């Protein structure tokens, strides 16, 4: 998927003028945001679990080669096959190969962000393989030919009425308004697809090194039907999903649902170890795991390594004032919100995406709620520095900063300039004490007044104050 992140500003403006989208985004605050806070409060161990979650991920990343080897051995012992893919193209080719070997005409897919990242959807379709998304949100955006707008709720940007219109158009029946009936209709349509599919593709929330186990989490139960009905199960996943032990996975699972939706636990957590056993009555005959690098190993040993702790809960976006105003599609690629602003430049290149690390006020709420304590503002600042070093900052900002630097590093000049500015602005604003309009500050005064300075600078006031005895505390 070609990123369209450079159009962030225009798309964000359009989003603000879209009442349906604003209403959909508004419900994130009352839903998932409030839910996370309730769930965290209800578990006294939550903060300690966050520390532990961070430590588990750090330990795994520091020993990633050893845990990868362990996972490889255990998966093979359980009868599964591991395929490495250096980049998106290699991953697409590997998956297509597996589909061709299985002579697959149709695949069902349960939500996998890595699958979106490597662009497998378009690739399968271009090669004549029918692909059906089974996660209801993913199915909705598949019908709309849209990318996901949220990690957990890919169709969170849509209202019920939009889904009603969509289903009426695609399913050919009468237009249904009742959400329960809409869900029932999707269930009926998708149920057939499960049985027609030759291959089921899922993602993984965690990969357990000690046992070669794949952990999936859903609320709908679609991952289990996707991998349980067809004869071949392909897992598309990435390196940083590894954890050492099943107990470590439990610790992270205690954080995942609470951080994501405020649930105590998602409805379905499934641990798959290998394909169907000889006497089993169900399960796939073959299990393939496609393990994607796609730039992740380049993050190891750099400032961005901390981002590899991410467990894709979506808490950062649920709490981000920019995401909640602009919506996911403004970000212009697969990953959105604060985590997307850190990952997208890595996967799609800073040249095409440098608007994203700037789409933040650095208010810090993302870091405050991150279950594995990723310093997201720090990592966005890292990308801003890269952007500046590469000369990708807009010329006005670059020259403006240069001019600022020139003045700010010359104290006498700085004091003279600020003294003059404060005096002039103080004089001009002495009537109302504020400005409605001010040249060069249009961005500020467009939506609020700028308070007028008092007429003197802090430095001048300090110098005056310094002559007097200090006030007792």
């Amino acid at each position, binding site marked *: 998927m070609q990123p369209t992140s450079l159009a962030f500003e225009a798309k964000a403006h359009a989003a603000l003028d879209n009442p349906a989208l604003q209403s959909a985004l508004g419900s994130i605050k009352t839903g998932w945001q409030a839910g996370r806070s309730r769930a965290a409060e209800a578990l006294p161990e939550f903060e300690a679990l966050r520390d532990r979650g961070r430590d588990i991920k750090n330990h795994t990343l520091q020993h990633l080669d050893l845990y990868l080897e362990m996972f490889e051995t255990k998966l093979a012992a359980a009868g599964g096959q591991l395929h490495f893919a250096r980049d998106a193209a290699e991953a697409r080719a590997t998956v297509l190969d597996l589909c061709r070997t299985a002579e697959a005409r149709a695949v069902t897919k349960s939500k996998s962000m890595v699958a979106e990242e490597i662009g497998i959807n378009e690739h399968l379709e271009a090669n004549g393989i029918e692909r059906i998304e089974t996660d209801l949100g993913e199915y909705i955006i598949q019908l709309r030919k849209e990318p996901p707008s949220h990690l957990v709720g890919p169709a969170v940007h849509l209202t019920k009425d939009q889904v009603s219109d969509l289903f009426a158009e695609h399913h050919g029946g009468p237009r249904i308004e009742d959400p329960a009936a809409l869900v029932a209709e999707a269930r009926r349509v998708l149920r057939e697809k499960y049985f027609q599919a030759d291959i089921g593709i899922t993602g993984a929330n965690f990969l357990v090194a000690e046992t070669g186990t794949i952990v999936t989490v859903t*609320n709908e139960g679609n991952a289990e039907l996707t991998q349980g009905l067809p004869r071949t199960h392909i897992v598309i996943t990435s390196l940083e999903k590894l954890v050492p*032990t099943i107990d470590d996975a439990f610790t992270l699972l205690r954080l995942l649902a609470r951080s994501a939706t405020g649930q105590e636990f998602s409805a379905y957590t*499934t641990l798959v170890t290998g394909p*169907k056993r000889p006497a089993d009555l169900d399960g796939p005959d073959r299990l393939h795991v496609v393990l994607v690098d796609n730039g992740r*190993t380049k993050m*190891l040993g750099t400032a961005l390594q901390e981002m590899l702790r991410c467990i894709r809960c979506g808490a950062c976006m649920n709490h981000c004032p920019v995401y909640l105003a602009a919506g996911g599609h403004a970000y212009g690629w697969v990953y959105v919100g604060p985590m997307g602003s850190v990952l997208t430049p890595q996967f799609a290149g800073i040249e095409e995406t440098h608007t994203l690390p700037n789409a933040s006020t650095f208010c810090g709420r993302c870091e405050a709620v991150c279950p594995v304590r990723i310093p997201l503002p720090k990592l966005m600042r890292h990308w801003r520095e890269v952007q500046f070093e590469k000369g990708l900052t807009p010329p006005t900002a670059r020259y403006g900063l240069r001019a600022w630097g020139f003045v700010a590093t010359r104290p006498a000049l700085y004091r003279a300039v600020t003294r003059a500015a404060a005096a002039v602005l103080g004089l001009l604003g002495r009537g109302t004490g504020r400005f409605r309009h001010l040249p060069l500050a249009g961005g500020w005064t467009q939506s609020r007044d700028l308070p007028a300075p008092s007429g003197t600078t802090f430095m001048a006031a300090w110098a005056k104050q310094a002559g007097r005895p200090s006030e007792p505390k």
Partner: protein
Amino acid sequence: MSDAREAVMARIREALGRTPEEDARARERVAAWPREAPPGRIPARGQLEPEARIELFTSMATRVQTDVERVTGAGAIPAAVGRYLRRHNLPQKLVMAPDPVLDEAGWASQPLLRIGRGTASDDDAVGLTLAVAGIAETGTVLLASSPDRPTLLAYLPETCIIVLPTDRIVGAYEQALALYREDASGLPRSLNFITGPSRTGDIAQKLELGAHGPKRLLVVLVDPESTAGQPA
């Protein structure tokens, strides 16, 4: 494929940049890791006396729309199942895990109930299976796949009934897995932690049940018959 493996491994090793001595220490740290988990990782919430654990399981399960019914002795399971099907106006027909424990429950007491044995197909409206453990922490049941306990029974039918002996209810996920491992070597193909019926919030964030898996989930808690004085 193996090229890709070597390239990815080489990049990781280069990024980690360990000397041979550091490498040996790293291997020791990895070997020691499972034993070094700090205490306090398991929430205190579920670490209770048996009866309190059963109560917590029931209240947590009920909060996520699981129906819970408690009976005494395996012989009471068929009647509980029959009652539940009647209450929800469902046909007296189900597909059941071919498990000896369920077989011995005495289904003759429900002459109207037609029972198929095996895994579920698309036509089955009701599936019945047996849990390995219950987890009080979040009102979760743990199923483990085996020839006697096919996985799809809990996912394909619109109504799923899971039998759970109360002496198999533990506090935490870790303890449930430990309980499974007491009787089994290695892991089954599929371990399924189930917390309530299937749900989705994908249409305007409104909770709807029965997205793909069951719309209804009944857990039949079974107290052992021999224990006198169990509350009803």
